[in-house]
């Protein structure tokens, strides 16, 4: 009788002691995640650079480089760090293509790049770093269409100021 009461009382206090300290919460919370502010659209975009081109007002920028031999796509931050990249130089992509340059290569690179961006959690990308008269090229149009069909939005949301 007495023993049972003591064991049940102890079990109850154990469970209570277990979670009783949970309620104590610090008033200020710091989130160390570097991607947190940009995913909440509260991070700063570099707003200067208005007299030069390309501008740096973005969180992630999609840059397509077409050389004589290869096509490469990079998603980078405004300070230049590459986050996700895909290129026809990689063996995984090169073995399925007849030529690592050209419209077909750009299209498939777009599909692969869209998949990698979504896996990395990058859903909004700035695609303004293309030269205006090159934007109407077949290869760049196919790349853009492939990225949009892959699920990446080529327009970054506006920063929340208030």
């Amino acid at each position, binding site marked *: 009788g007495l023993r049972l009461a003591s064991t049940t009382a102890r079990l109850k206090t154990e469970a209570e002691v*277990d*979670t009783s*300290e*949970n*309620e*104590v*919460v*610090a008033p200020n*919370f*710091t*989130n*160390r*995640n*570097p*991607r*947190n*502010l940009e*995913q*909440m659209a*509260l991070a700063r975009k570099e707003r200067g650079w208005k007299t030069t081109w390309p501008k740096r007002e973005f969180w992630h920028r999609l840059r397509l*480089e077409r050389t004589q031999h290869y096509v490469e796509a990079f998603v980078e*931050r405004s*300070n*230049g*760090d*590459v*986050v*996700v*990249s895909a290129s026809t130089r*990689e*063996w*995984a*992509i*090169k*073995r*399925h*293509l*007849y*030529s690592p340059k*050209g*419209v*077909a*290569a750009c*299209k*498939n690179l777009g*599909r*692969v790049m869209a*998949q*990698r961006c979504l*896996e*990395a*959690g*990058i*859903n909004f990308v700035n695609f303004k770093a293309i*030269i205006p008269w*090159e934007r109407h090229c077949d290869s760049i149009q*196919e790349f853009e269409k492939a990225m949009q069909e892959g699920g990446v939005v080529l327009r970054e949301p506006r920063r929340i100021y208030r």
Partner: protein
Amino acid sequence: AVLWKRAAPLGPMPNEDVDVKNLEVLERYRSFTRYLRQAERESRKPRWWNTYHRHTNPPAEPQTDIGLPREQLSRAKEIKERKRILRENHQNAEMERAARLRTVLIPLDEVRAEWEKTSGPFHKQRVAKHCGVFRDLFKGATFTPWVALRVHYSQEDEHLVPVYYGNMVTPSEASSPPEVSYEADKGSLWTLLLTNPDGHLRDADSEYLHWLVTNIPGSDIKAGKEMCHYLPPFPAMGTGYHRFIFLLFKQHGPIDFSQDARPMPCYSLKMRTFNTFDFYRKHKDAMTPAGLAFFQCQWDSSVTSTFHQLLNMREPVFEFVRPPPYHPPQVKFPRHQPLRYLDRYRDTEEPTYGIY
């Protein structure tokens, strides 16, 4: 005062190598694209004078590698094999026609499988570095995740939510333990760890341990010893996105984790407070990090039920507080400033008088 004293420059001046006397011999750009590519390449080079890039980015410290050493396969055979495949591709008329008519569609699953074997680990390491995983968990020491870790959260309607490097998963999808699979030799022992470095409600430097399974033989998670049972993610409302990181360690032999054993079930946040750096330093000689997968998680209505039922506490709600706007030190006679200049330095709140 610094610029009054003339001295020799500390490095070569830009365009010093261009011979101004003989300009016709120089190669012209002839197209804007070529100029832009060259300009971008030059802007990325490190300079001896102080640049905006150097001012904003702190200099990179030398990274210590704590991962498994790279297995060097015979490179010559691999190159020969690849060249053979490329030659076959070039001789294939169907591929040539498909490329010409732009109907080629690469099998994305095969590309992904090949990528996981070849350049996947490097890409994952790069994304993890930019998400601050190494900085927060290992204080700067990096590793390349050679073992491809496949993590799936299965839902009720047979739907699978995969976890890649930086995915977005909701807490309601992550309420039950996921299915983890990876390639492992028979007889090897592994440790799986799920931490949340961002969610700690009391101390900003420590993490919350959500799942710890040790001494896993091969790739069978159920056979491993569960030191800490699975707790669904609980990012508090208003705090934004939290990272939840899966770490796979390869053990050199059976390790005794009795110090890290938590009571089953453990719903005390104090017991769940964890530091991966200390944990890894304790077992540094017996295990090495081999796999990495992480996802981003935001508040969801299932988090409320986790707080109320499992953790038995009131749910904390946070609000984003903007840092105060910066104003330069106040000057007695400001030049070209409107009347609201005084309002910027006043302690009390004055009503605004329009545009003045």
